[in-house]
């Protein structure tokens, strides 16, 4: 998008991701979403008097993995207490990292070639969840408030970007790429709608080559759509204020998805003084080189590299095919495409089938072996199956399992004999003389007309390529 009158937006993002650990950050309670309220709690995550935290080793490993994936420096770090009163925060302080985060100074390269710097990626604990009963739905004026502490103490990593993002699409790409990385390294399940990935956006506007403007922080961005809409709305709002001669005050704003606008949550003067100080119940975190090396060695191939490798298997991939590759990588379908490549099959066709048919049935993948996917693509490529039939076979394999040859046979998707196809085409030419004449005169579009008729006549059993070959031979 272009902003009016030469304005430029400056965006930095804070992404909170819950870590996919078995247990919470400081206690042995299960880290699971969706259990009965307050069923996964203990004296530690309830902050009962006398309880003390013990750091989860796996959480540290995942935090380091995030650091490596984002090209950060993994450094010795400390924990601090961030003090403020809130009923869903059991100790009335949050244990977080402050001046010495575990991961410092990195960057993330986006598919469009731009680079966004990472200022830090630090560990902290999540809070519980409050539900306010009553008309307002907010804490003020609520009749009653209920707190579920299952989420309290769930490990989080907060990834803070530099103010390097210049438009909503880039913000979206950044979060999408980051999410893809977090999922790939097993740090997060990346579900924005469940709140396991949460994004806050710092937005300001200025004219290029002038200092940055005053920024506002937008909360409650629960989807990529919200993110782009909110950033765009906020930039335009700030421009309106400035062009009317007003000024922006630093504040936290709430995104209302339904109304499509941001509104003031709290202004800076009301901001809390968090009275940070070192958490005396925890010791310094100083992973030794051997541990860091193990984490680095265990890091899987990252999405950017995987996309690159898949695209290298295709000749001059189109934009649509590149999008297909992105989907394949995001959904971890690489092995299917790689299987086809190894069998010297049609990789572009494999990407198309994986990014569409497999992507739409991701929860049924267990039924489909790589081998059977490769065989199906091969049958389609050779003309044994039409595109429609191949999709049909894949759907059946995903639903029920089995092998493509048997499924094709059971469905009656046997190849029409060349004679039979030839006879059908011959009949249709006779029945549609005008169209045939136009085709013969060079109107290639008519090929589709005849393919449609053949498909109808053969109930989809004909192979489109074979039909074209037959038409061409008679032209």
């Amino acid at each position, binding site marked *: 998008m272009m902003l009016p009158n030469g304005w430029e937006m400056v965006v930095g993002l804070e992404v909170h991701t819950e870590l996919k650990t078995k247990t919470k950050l400081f206690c042995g309670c299960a880290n699971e979403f969706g259990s009965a309220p307050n069923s996964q709690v203990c*004296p530690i995550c309830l902050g009962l*008097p006398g*309880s003390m935290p013990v750091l989860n080793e796996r959480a540290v490993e995942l935090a380091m993995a995030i650091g490596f994936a984002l090209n950060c420096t993994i450094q010795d770090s400390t924990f601090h207490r961030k003090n403020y009163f809130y009923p869903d925060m*059991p100790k*009335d302080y949050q244990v977080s990292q402050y001046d010495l985060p575990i991961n410092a100074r990195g960057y993330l390269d986006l598919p469009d070639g731009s680079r966004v710097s990472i200022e830090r990626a630090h560990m902290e604990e999540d809070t519980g969840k409050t539900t306010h009963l009553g008309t307002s739905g907010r804490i003020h004026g609520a009749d009653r408030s209920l707190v579920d502490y299952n989420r309290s103490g769930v490990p989080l990593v907060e990834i803070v970007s530099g103010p390097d993002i210049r438009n909503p699409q880039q913000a979206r790409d950044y979060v999408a790429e980051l999410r893809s990385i977090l999922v790939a390294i097993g740090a997060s399940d990346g579900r924005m709608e469940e709140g396991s990935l949460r994004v806050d956006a710092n937005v300001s506007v200025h004219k290029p080559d002038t200092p940055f403007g005053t920024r506002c922080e937008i909360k409650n961005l629960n989807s990529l759509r919200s993110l782009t809409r909110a950033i765009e709305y906020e930039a335009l709002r700030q421009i309106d204020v400035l062009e009317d001669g007003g000024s922006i005050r630093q504040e936290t704003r709430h995104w209302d998805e339904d109304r499509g606008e941001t509104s003031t949550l709290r202004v800076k003067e009301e901001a809390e003084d968090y009275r940070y100080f070192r958490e005396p*119940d925890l010791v310094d975190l100083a992973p030794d080189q051997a541990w860091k090396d193990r984490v680095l060695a265990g890091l899987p191939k990252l999405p950017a590299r995987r996309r690159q490798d898949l695209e290298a298997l295709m000749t001059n991939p189109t934009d649509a095919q590149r999008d297909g590759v992105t989907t394949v990588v995001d959904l971890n379908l690489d092995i299917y495409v790689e299987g086809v490549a190894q069998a010297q099959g049609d990789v572009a066709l494999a990407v198309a089938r994986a990014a569409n048919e497999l992507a739409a049935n991701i929860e049924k993948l267990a039924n489909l072996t790589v081998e059977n996917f490769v065989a199906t693509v091969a049958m389609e490529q050779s003309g044994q199956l039409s595109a429609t039939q191949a999709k049909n076979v894949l759907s059946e394999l995903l639903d029920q399992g089995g092998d493509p040859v048997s499924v094709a046979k059971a469905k009656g998707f046997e190849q029409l004999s060349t004679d039979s196809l030839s006879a059908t085409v011959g009949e249709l030419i006779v029945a549609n003389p005008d169209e045939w004449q136009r085709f013969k005169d060079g109107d290639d579009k008519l090929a589709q007309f005849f393919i449609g008729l053949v498909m109808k006549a053969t109930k989809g059993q004909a192979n489109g390529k074979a039909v074209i070959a037959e038409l061409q031979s008679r032209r």
Partner: protein
Amino acid sequence: MKSALEIAAAVRSGQSALVAVEESLTAIRARNEELNVFLYVDEDGARAAAARVDEQVRRGEDPGLLAGVPIALKDNLCTTGIPTTCSSKILEGWQPPYNATVVDRLVAQGAISMGKTNLDEFAMGSSTENSAFGPTRNPLDPSRVPGGSSGGSAAAVASNMTPISLGSDTGGSIRQPAALCGLVGVKPTYGLVSRYGLIAFASSLDQIGPFANSVTDAALLLEAIAGHDPLDSTSLPEPTPSLLAHVNDGVAGKRIGLVRELVDGADEDVVRAVNKAVATLKDAGAIIVELSMPELHLGLSAYYLIAPAEASSNLARFDGVRFGNRVDGEDVTAMMEATRTAGFGAEVKRRIMLGTYALSAGYFDAYYGQALKVRTRMIEAFAAAYQQVDMIIGATTPSVAFAFGSKTNDPMAMYLNDVFTIPTNLAGEAAISVPFGTGEANLPVGVQLLGPGRSEARLFAAARVLEIADGRA
């Protein structure tokens, strides 16, 4: 009452654990109303535990180092099944769903908890006058304070209600009441004893430690509770040291530093006792080295920033939301305010305000930050001193037990009680107070022995020399 060592030996060789338990209950009944030592007496629990110990002995099992020994627990240690109050209205009636690690370890060693003892609210005080449930009186002179904050645990042993007890020491809360009640009291090296289940006052300073009538019993109790705990990240990883085995090692050839700043300002009777102790140790073969550590004067100021700062955060959770008393309000914020206003006493509020201020933006560097620098200097000063000497000797308190009310209106005078004990907490090191001679009104005087981290065995050996010379053993 017999010593803990004697009771454990008797029980292990077949005497019923109920004997000592009933003796303890009789002593509690005799004086608890007068002295206000126990906030909760667990009569049924104690008898049931004694029966279990007896059953273990009958089966030929060893109940442990503290077989059948009655013990009193400061009421800031979490115990299941009975209340834990921290002597605060805000926690009145609360029953923790878990035991402190030390409590589990005591049970595992056969000890029998008689109940929970009074303290200054949230361990903030030096006289036990700050308890929401009334002051504890000094058994040696009920017109005087027992010291604090572990006044109840000190009084329990001084009045022979139990042979041993546990307290916690953040700035002197074990050693000062031990001195005022004529007991041995130990502030172990930071991390030697697990803090899990100790309701925190100042997490970087708090340590749980023993009270006993003798050095031997104190060593026995510390040995039973010390050692790494995976639930406390700050607990030392090394194995439990052997303490009891070394109490008779003596001080021959040991270099002992007499630090002027740990005596200056004390009453004359206290100074006299310290000097006599020095002479005694010299006679026993120690080499006395006079030292000056001017940094120690900064300790009190640094402590009264660091401890309240941590306390302001540690005590935030007492907000009425999940446990303890709740006073309703218009909304959540008002409820929290009303709960804390009604639930905390004056001294606790004073320290929360002090600590909140010290951590606030704009003041942090000048107060909390500066105090941390002082703390580092203190650690360096001790490290330098321990290059020259094996341990340090000084007074525990500036005076013997003082009268009720004499310092309650002057917080600074009260805070000065801890001037000699605070440096050890700031440095995270070990110290012991041992009674030696008497002072004004024939009241006991405490002499303090300080050592580097994990030097407890050495300190016990020196304290034992003084104990024997004083005719206490």
